[in-house]
């Protein structure tokens, strides 16, 4: 069954879950909870809040499972939910403009910082990413955080969720050319942030 579910598309799993097959939901969570968590974390920048919002995203999926149409694209639907929850949460927390990487995160006992979290080497990360210096990673995070909301949103949906521009346009409710334009600005900003690093110069060659 697991093998079958591993080959199944997200849409097929969602239809199975609509029919009451709970294993399909487990598989969907296993596939997407990491990318959803990262998308939410980059938007909200508070790990504890991101964790709760990630859980809320999947709970919304459970509550609205009957509304899912089998011809719709699952990831588009899932990230639309995540985006809406992030917007709601940002309004509540008012952290959008004021969060700092050095700010203690909520009431966590270990007071883990977002900068530390990102700087923490990830054993499952790709070798390419592992090869980057902590300084470069910090610069990337800072550059992304400094992006305007609309550009950062498009950048995260493209880089973290790996969604095509057409789906991003559907999620954000703007035209595909607008999405590409925002993405181009985001990449240019990132390029400026990375232009002083040796890794970038090597990549250019």
């Amino acid at each position: 069954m697991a093998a079958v579910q591993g080959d199944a598309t997200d849409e097929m799993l969602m239809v199975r879950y609509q029919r009451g097959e709970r294993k399909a939901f487990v598989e969907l969570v296993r596939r997407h909870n990491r990318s959803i968590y990262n998308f939410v974390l980059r938007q909200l920048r508070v790990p504890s809040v991101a964790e709760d919002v990630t859980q809320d995203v999947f709970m919304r999926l459970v509550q609205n499972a009957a509304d899912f149409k089998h011809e719709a694209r699952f990831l588009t639907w899932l990230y639309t939910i995540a985006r809406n929850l992030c917007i709601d949460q940002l309004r509540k927390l008012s952290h959008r403009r004021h969060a700092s990487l050095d700010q203690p995160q909520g009431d966590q006992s270990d007071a883990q910082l977002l900068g530390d979290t990102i700087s923490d080497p990830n054993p499952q990360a790709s070798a390419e990413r592992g090869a980057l210096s902590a300084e470069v990673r910090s610069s990337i995070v800072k550059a992304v955080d400094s992006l305007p909301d609309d550009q950062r949103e498009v950048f995260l949906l493209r880089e973290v969720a790996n969604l095509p521009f057409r789906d991003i346009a559907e999620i954000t409710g703007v035209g595909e050319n607008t999405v590409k334009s925002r993405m181009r600005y985001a990449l240019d900003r990132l390029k400026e942030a990375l232009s002083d690093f040796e890794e970038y110069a090597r990549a250019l060659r």
Partner: protein
Amino acid sequence: MDCEKFDRIVLDLLYDELDELTTAAAKRHMEHCARCKAIGSGLRATREVGALPLVEPPDGLELRILQAEEQAAQLLPIGKRLGRGLSLLASYAMRPQVSMAALLMLMIGSSLFFLRAQPGDREHVLVTERGVPESDNDSVTIIPKKPDAPEPARVATHPAPTARVEDGAARRDRATESKSEAAPAAAPAPVAAERYAAAPRSEATRGGAALGASDDDKDLEGSGRASTDSDASYDAAMAAYRDGRYSEAQRHFDEIASLGGPHAANAALYGAQALRRVSGCPTAAPRFEEVHSRYPGSVGSDAAWQAADCYRSLGELARARANYEQLSADPSYKTRAKEAIAELDQRVADQELAARKAATAAAAPAASAAAKGKAPAASAPAKPAASK
């Protein structure tokens, strides 16, 4: 490809969202255009180096999500559960097999609707020779008994129940044949047989049964018999008539006719018919006339025909002729009435001729006798003279 177009597609190129041809064209353009090559290389390097490092979600997040899902599924409101059930049903209903099955059932159902049995208890619709369906009440078959025949005239043959419509020519031929074979007094019998063959079952069956119907006739009688009380009384009267208990039959028919109802006209006619069997034509003829005047239509015409028959048997040819002339206006009796009138005229002519002959025969002896009486008187004086 030019630089302007390259700028539009450079992101698609970066994320591999271009088709092969456009990708090849973009790469060829980059080989010749330093500007576009720098843009493409810069974006590619940015994406490679600036790939956002992903963070692993906290331990236990997945477990928390699954536990929350389990609780949420238990607390799911009834509307959501129904929605889930409907979604499940819809997913099955949208399958092509289900659609085809539904379409097939719809076709079968509509076919059954259009092919259903027609309402009513008639198995066959009988029509007159003019093609108009006959009603149950306005047609009756009367098969008069031959005055000299002890048994009722039988219907020799008649068509099968499903093929009862005869054309007019065939009817006329049969009537002519019957007429040539039967005595003038019995002429209505074959005519009635034809009418019986063409009459609706409910009436014709009774008429046929009254005349000693065959097995086929009995089948028709059984199928056409009604279940009401009036039908039972009528059937009892017919049974008495059929058995030759004409007095009893007459009494029953008279009661039915006096009570009215759907059988009143036929009962009146059969009552007169029974009376004719009991008391003969002198008593029955006025009764036939009464039925004729009371019940217009085919029953009245039948009664007029019977009355004319009685008059003819009684020798009242003028009254018989008057009835036949009246019947000649009825399309169903027109031919027969004219034939009967011709017969009557012939009969009257024969009677007149016979009367003249008889008168001539009676006048000749008288003349001779008179002549004989005069001769002796004339000769007698002569004799004395001669003797003188």
